[in-house]
């Protein structure tokens, strides 16, 4: 492995021996991205009225909410002093790119909850009227005390839902573009420092959210032995394919630009890509998990393939994209720290299994939204058309 800057031995600054932002911090933008992606699908259904997506609009919204509940959890586990996390709300230091994350994230979660409540409140009222005892009390709480539902209410609700879904799309973009900005604005780490980073993060967020929805959709339909909506799947993959091409082009553009510019940036990035990131970035993220899905999904979209075969290909491509974005998050977050600020050495990343920021905690946090989704889906109809629509 060639060392950067004419180094004869691997030299890293003594304080760079630890990768301070570990896999847990890679999970944070990953989950945040899933929210944005899932919400975009619900927006396509509710705002842009794409008819094929009508049946999955609420599914996407509930999925976005399930992811949303856990987006900040990796940060809390990572903080050295998590009990002080509230300070970010009370004394945000506004020159920091991170300081208003608390507000953006919380406001987005409130928006999601409002939209879900408006969509599902006819269901809550119906259940309140149909049950007794403790169950009735729980449904009553969910109705927020409004137990009657008039046609006029439905009209107002529809307008409010449209409004929330409408502002939700740019807000989802802000949420995730913002996460990209947190990384892209760090000039000390060349692999992060790029004005393209917010856009790349946003587009890859949409990709991961959409791809995850496709995998979840297929799994749920398979598990419940329900019929697949092939027309929706085909349309869905067309959107996913297009957005992924855009995301991938920008990801590659960033590297190609640095290569062509051939300046200080490239002096650091090149050894990184030829060295510690060669396997996980060049081989896995780019060659395997990007090129193959582009062709797979392209075949699904452009050919006449349909039925089960189309579904399998769509899911294989989607699953690879779910992994592609997970690898991308890892390669950005951890990868950026793998070249020491000494610019003359590479840092070893030690995989931790049981620690506070280890694989077990990360996997548990990643799994939590799916458990939450499952629990929610036990009580409210995910794919059924809600009464008011």
């Amino acid at each position: 492995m060639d060392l950067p800057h004419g180094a004869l031995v691997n030299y890293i600054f003594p304080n760079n021996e630890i990768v301070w932002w570990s896999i847990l911090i890679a999970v944070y933008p990953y989950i945040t991205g899933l929210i944005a992606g899932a919400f975009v699908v619900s927006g396509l259904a509710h705002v842009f009225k794409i008819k094929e997506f009508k049946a999955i609009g609420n599914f996407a919204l509930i999925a976005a909410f399930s992811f949303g509940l856990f987006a900040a959890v990796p940060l809390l586990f990572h903080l050295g002093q998590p009990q002080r996390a509230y300070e970010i709300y009370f004394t945000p230091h506004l020159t920091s790119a991170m300081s208003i994350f608390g507000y953006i994230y919380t406001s987005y979660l409130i928006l999601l909850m409002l939209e879900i409540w408006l969509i599902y409140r006819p269901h809550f009222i119906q259940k309140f009227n149909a049950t007794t005892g403790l169950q009735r009390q729980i449904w009553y709480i969910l109705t927020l005390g409004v137990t009657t539902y008039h046609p006029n209410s439905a009209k107002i609700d529809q307008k409010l839902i449209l409004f929330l879904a409408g502002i939700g799309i740019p807000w989802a973009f802000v949420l995730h573009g913002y996460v990209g900005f947190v990384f892209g604005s760090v000039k000390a780490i060349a692999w992060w420092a790029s004005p393209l980073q917010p856009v790349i993060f946003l587009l890859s967020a949409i990709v991961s959210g959409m791809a995850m929805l496709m995998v979840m959709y297929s799994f749920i339909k398979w598990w419940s032995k329900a019929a697949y909506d092939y027309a929706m799947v085909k349309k869905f993959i067309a959107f996913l394919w297009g957005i992924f091409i855009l995301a991938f082009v920008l990801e590659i553009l960033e590297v190609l630009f640095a290569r062509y510019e051939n300046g200080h940036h490239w002096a650091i990035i090149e050894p990184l890509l030829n060295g510690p990131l060669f396997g996980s970035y060049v081989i896995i993220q780019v060659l395997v998990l990007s090129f193959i899905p582009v062709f797979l999904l392209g075949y699904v979209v452009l050919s006449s393939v349909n039925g089960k075969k189309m579904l399998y290909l769509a899911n294989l491509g989607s699953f690879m994209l779910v992994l592609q974005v997970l690898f991308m998050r890892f390669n950005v977050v951890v990868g950026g720290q793998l070249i020491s600020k000494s610019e003359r050495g590479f840092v070893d990343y030690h995989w931790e299994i049981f620690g506070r920021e280890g694989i077990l905690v990360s996997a548990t946090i990643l799994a939590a939204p799916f458990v939450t989704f499952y629990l929610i889906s036990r009580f409210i109809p995910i794919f059924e058309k809600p009464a008011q629509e």
Partner: protein
Amino acid sequence: MKKLVSDFSELDSGSRRKFLQYAMSGAATILMVQMPDAAAIQGRGKGWKQMSTKHQYAYVIDINKCIGWGGCVRACGQENDVPEGVFRTWVERYVLTEDGVYVDSPKGGSEGFEPVSAEIQEKAQRSFFVPKMCNHCENPPCVQVCPVGATYKSPEGFVLIDHDYCLGCAYCVQACPYGARFINTEKHVSDKCTWCYHRVKQGNQPACVEACPTGARIFGDLMDPESDVSQIFNDSQWMVLKPDMYTSPMCFYVELPREVV
């Protein structure tokens, strides 16, 4: 050794927790206004940005005088209770050869340096030691990125951390181009060199400066024209680390070879 004046009345006034004030004048406007103006910072006028204070501290490191003894690193560790494996200050050894640059800093240089291998020795053209530490930048990216304002710059030029307020998120660790910051593995908050603020305010020198037997480390007040740092500074024969980062460090290096990163 010259006694430092200890008038720090302005130091703790602090510039954080201005949330209400910011909120009233509009967060967006503030964000724009707060963006550091690199041109203004680089065009330093007389070389550094004078704040409304009686003191303006700076640190000078003379590469020619450092012998790599490591007493400074040990003194710092004892004075500041620095956990093992992380360093508020460290010393690097550079050996320039015809094939490239050899750099090392075993245990931060705290125990001195063993001779380099015979192979490196054979090819060696020049070697020297470079002490490193927080640069207490005029335009500190660590202060900019702290989400709660736990790290701040005092009017006298110290970049400090409020350990009772720091979240331990490590964003400042990422933002520092010099690797000067770390997460204190015992306190679980961000940590770094303070120029021994607690000593300086009592009129003493930083522990590393006091421990240096050759005078390679010099600390003083730029507002005092008689101070060593003022005189070295006015000679303009100094360099800073990573000038392309536009952080305007307040640690000035004398005879810094260009191979040093």
